[in-house]
């Protein structure tokens, strides 16, 4: 409820159109209501009195009303659609902008799939509410009130007699509507179970086949299928009674009018035309009730969607520049200091991801980081461009706490190659130029050459113009990684962060890339995370991480002698066979 209210601010810019739509709708309803009254005039004043003039006049009047009415209705329709779609568009944009402002911490807690649902379905649901409200929502109460007035106007006693019927109908509608959503929810739950089973069966098909679980799976499916079907039948059968029951109420009303009204007509109390009008009005009074009942469903769905939308819109990006944040000066001699840094992803997590990290790195150094999964290597890298803020301690860039700096100015001078390569649909060239769209062709080629990507790019069907399909499906893992490296190199960063980004590149190429880095990043700083000893072996310093701590720092030979963890990793990769074989 509250959330829908909050989201109504998105309708505000279109209040003129909305108001106009509602005015047109009101006009439509009023003339809709006038028609039965005019038909009554045709009967009572025209036919029964034999007055042809009245018949013709009224007919022409009705025709005129009907035509203007149609214009109003079309106007209302188009305005409602415009407002609804505008609101949907603005909501999508607001959500998208919000998501773009999120930092890594926010993103960790949300899944891409969820976000996409919010952007597409939830906005559509809300749009539908706006559009329906403008198109039908007000029509229902107006029609009902109008019909009631006309009914009382036509014959007070008959109208009063109809009141218990109206009330009963209302009760019945409330009864059905209040049960609809919960009932559908139970069906949906069963359906979800059925779908999960199907999905897992398909996703795990190799396993199902290998263990010959065909019959077992079919049995499980049959049980769920049966449960879902039975539940669904029950709910459908319940819902199937709604419209006949309500129609029965209308019919009872009509018979009552014919009988009671007819009785009065015989006594001379009402005219035949009034009877006809009354029947018409009764129908127009009851149908809005049903519409409103259904509107309640749309409203309930929209309320859930609005809540999910609001959840995103009210989330604050975790990392924002301070009002007095300073830009980083050009990092000619970059220096990074970690001072007693600790980090956890959320505060109630028992074991911190990083703890007590003290480190000083200067320009000109190539630093390798090694450790098992979950040791905190990636996290260490992610703290430097302030993708996350330290939980405790301080991280300084050339002497200034990164939290005091403008993040964009940091990112200008840092390039990162993430563990999971992300490329965008577009040409290979555009992907390499991603960080510096204005870079020249020569610069692009130089970066590609350094990343050992130039040759294979030339061998692609259209060379640098080759279109990269969604997520780079037309490239091998190693090729994607090299394009991502070229993309980072092109930025000519002062600090380069490589997160295990050569795992799919063969060792020979990897060592060529490392050699290129020496010249490309001379005097600059390179930090790279590796899984393989061979990729970090030649670093100026190797940081060995273990359970969030720095366990040892040193050169390869030194660590082989002093660090048990380094020795263990070394042994696991080289094994005894190496010593025998080489």
């Amino acid at each position, binding site marked *: 409820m509250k959330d829908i209210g909050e989201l109504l601010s998105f309708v505000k810019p279109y209040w003129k159109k909305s108001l106009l739509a509602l005015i047109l709708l009101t006009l439509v309803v009023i003339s*809709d209501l006038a*028609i039965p009254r005019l038909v009554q005039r045709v009967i009572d004043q025209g036919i029964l009195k034999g007055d042809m003039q009245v*018949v013709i006049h*009224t*007919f022409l009047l*009705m025709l005129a009303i*009907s035509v203007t*009415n*149609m214009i109003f209705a*079309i106007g209302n329709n188009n305005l409602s*659609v*415009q407002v609804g779609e*505008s609101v949907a*568009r603005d909501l999508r*944009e607001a959500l*998208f902008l919000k*998501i*773009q*402002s999120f930092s890594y911490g926010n993103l960790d807690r949300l899944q891409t799939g969820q976000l*996409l649902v919010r*952007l597409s379905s939830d906005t559509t649901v809300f749009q539908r509410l706006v559009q*329906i409200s403008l198109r039908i929502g007000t029509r229902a109460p107006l029609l009902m009130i109008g019909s009631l007035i006309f009914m009382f106007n036509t014959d007070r006693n008959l109208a009063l007699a109809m009141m218990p019927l109206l009330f009963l109908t209302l009760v019945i509608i409330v009864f059905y509507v209040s049960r*609809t959503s919960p009932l559908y929810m139970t069906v*949906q739950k069963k359906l979800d179970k059925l779908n999960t089973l199907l*999905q*897992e069966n398909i996703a*795990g098909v190799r396993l199902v*086949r*290998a*263990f010959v679980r*065909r019959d077992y*799976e079919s049995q499980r499916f049959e049980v769920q299928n049966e449960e879902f079907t039975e539940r669904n039948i029950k709910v459908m*059968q319940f819902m199937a*009674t709604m419209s*006949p029951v309500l129609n029965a109420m209308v*019919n009872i009303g*009509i018979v009552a009018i014919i*009988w009671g009204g007819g009785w009065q007509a*015989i006594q001379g109390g009402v005219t*035949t*035309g009034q009877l*006809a009008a009354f029947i018409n009005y009764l*129908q127009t009074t*009851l*149908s809005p009730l049903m519409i409103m009942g*259904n509107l309640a469903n749309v409203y309930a769905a929209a309320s859930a969607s609005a809540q999910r939308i609001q959840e995103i819109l009210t989330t604050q990006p975790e990392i924002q520049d301070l009002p007095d944040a300073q830009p980083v000066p050009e990092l000619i001699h970059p220096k990074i200091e970690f001072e007693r840094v600790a980090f956890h992803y959320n505060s109630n997590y028992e074991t911190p991801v990083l703890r007590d990290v003290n480190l000083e790195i200067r320009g000109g150094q190539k630093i390798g980081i090694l450790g*098992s*999964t979950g040791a905190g290597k990636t996290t260490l890298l992610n703290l430097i461009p302030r*993708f996350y803020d330290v939980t405790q301690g301080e991280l300084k860039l050339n002497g200034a706490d990164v939290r005091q700096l403008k993040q964009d100015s940091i*990112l200008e001078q840092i390039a990162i190659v993430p563990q999971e390569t*992300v490329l965008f*649909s577009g040409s290979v060239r555009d992907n390499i130029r*991603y*960080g510096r769209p204005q870079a020249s062709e020569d610069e692009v080629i130089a970066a590609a050459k350094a990343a050992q990507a130039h040759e294979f790019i030339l061998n692609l069907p259209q060379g640098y113009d080759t279109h990269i399909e969604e997520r780079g499906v037309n490239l091998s893992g190693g090729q994607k990684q090299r394009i991502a490296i070229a993309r980072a190199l092109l930025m000519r960063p002062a600090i380069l962060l490589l997160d295990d980004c050569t795992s799919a590149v063969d*060792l020979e190429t990897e*060592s060529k890339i490392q050699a290129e880095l020496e010249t490309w990043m001379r005097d600059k700083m390179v930090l790279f995370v590796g899984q393989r000893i061979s990729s970090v072996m030649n670093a100026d310093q190797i940081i060995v991480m273990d359970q969030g701590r720095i366990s040892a720092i040193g050169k390869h030979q030194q660590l082989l002698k002093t660090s048990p963890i380094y020795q263990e990793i070394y042994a*696991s990769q*080289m094994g005894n066979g*190496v010593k*025998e074989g080489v």
Partner: protein
Amino acid sequence: MSLQSDRDRQSFDQSARLVPRQGGRPVRIEKARKPLQALYRLIIYLLPHRWSLVLVILFVVLSTIAGLGGPYLMGVAVDRYIASKNLAGLAQISVAMLVIFLMGNASDAASSWIMARVSQAALKRLRKELFEHIQVLPMSFFDTHPVGELMSRLTNDIEAINQAVSQNVVSLLSSVLLMAGILITMFIINLWLALASVVVVPLMLWFAEWIARYTRKGFRQLQKQLGSLNSVMEESISGQRVIKAFRRNQSVIEAFRQSNQEVYKAAVFANSYALLLMPITNQLGNLFVIAIAGLGGWLAIQGLTTVGDIITFITYARNFVNPLRQLSNIYNAIQAALAGAERVFEIIDTPPEIPDAPNAYAMPSLEGDVRFDQVYFGYNAEKPVIKNMSLEAKAGQTIALVGPTGAGKTTVANLITRFYEINKGRITIDGKDIRQIKKDDLRRQIGLVLQDNFLFSATVMENIRYGRLDATDEEVMEAARLAEADHFIRQLPQGYQTVLSERASNLSQGQRQLLAIARAILADPGILILDEATSNVDTRTEIRLQSALLRLMEGRTSFVIAHRLSTIRDADQVLVIRDGEIVERGTHTELLQQQGFYYQLYMSQFRGEPI
């Protein structure tokens, strides 16, 4: 008689239900290629319920008769009894009207009631057949149909069929019947009034068709624009970390804005037309009434008709407009259902795996001698993936398959389990051609541990028991102990009863691997295939996995696929595979001495390593 705003209600019903089921996307507009064939095959699913269907039709006819009779009696009441002040007659005819009306409503309820059961029973059977067929589809089917795509297709298509069968069939029938009935009755009651009414009908049909044409065009365009907006959103959200790192937010937002605006334009166009149907038919309905009142008035004064007839006609007119409005909706829904049915049947018609030969051997247990004799295989005939492969694994041996990515190592494993059928040559187990062995027996004897092992959303206990369904709790725990998984399982919140979430995100890679090993131990297969079983874990975790794996491999013929040479050292045979062929074979030390391809692979892994 039905309520005036049935169309309002229907559009509501659909939108309310669209929300949870289809994510609120606009109706898809599509057509089946061979609609009649799809329809015919759908009808087969309804045939077992033919007597129920006859009953449904009966009730629909009853309800139509009531829908026609009620208003007719109304006219009679006005003309004959009210005009002649016959109170007793009025009472009688009122009772008759009430009975007829209520009978009509009851028939409506009855037909929907029965139809709910019929349609759901038919759909249940369709789902069951579909699922069972999926269980026997050849593995190659799943290579070309990704899970996500398959799932959304199945759920959407079945839902489309459901909508059509459970609602639209009955409404189509009753709409057509009612409209025909009204037209006929109108002509019987008064020729002139009927003729006047009939003029309005083509006008309405023409409008409906005109609107439908633009609606279809609009929705097609909207779908296209939504597609591109979705890919913009998906790409920028999944790539957001990189976008942020390279400060490209502004250009991404610009691209989004453009696409978003295009969607807006397309949506306004499509929906303006789609939603126009209601106000226009509403007003045409009014026009209908007006025409009857005007002409009827003139005729009545001429003495050619009566007031009662006019009242009857007006009611008919209102009732006539409702089904007309629904027809275009029903038409679209049925089209969508047929297109969906066609796709579902396409799956059901996909030929299953080759069934067992009639004289196939049962193989309750095996020694484990595996031989390949000049085996050729390709996913399509022109491009062989495995060429002239011969190998022999003696019972209990460990065979390592080594080679670059894409060389065909996994394919070799898939051929042993008969996930794919070889094109040429022979694969034998204990001397029997595997094509002569019952497939189920064969697969039961082969254990698989893969790189990314699938765990079901069920308890840990159930996941391990998947290896052998009749295993007792103790046996499951024993298997877990042997796999060195018992320890961490007991530390989970509910121990063995912990429910694993989808794709088991609450376990680490190494732990998932241990569960898979436990599962394989419980299954106790004679032949074991380890396909990159340790490549997703870091090297230190791997060492811990190694001892569990060794225990699993004990006494079984094992095929080990690995890219880490360290896991291969102890194999009885190392087969080096390159481009689908075995280029070198021997033990680790022999191969090193040969200084061939294996030596190169090996040296590139540890090149320049000073020891």
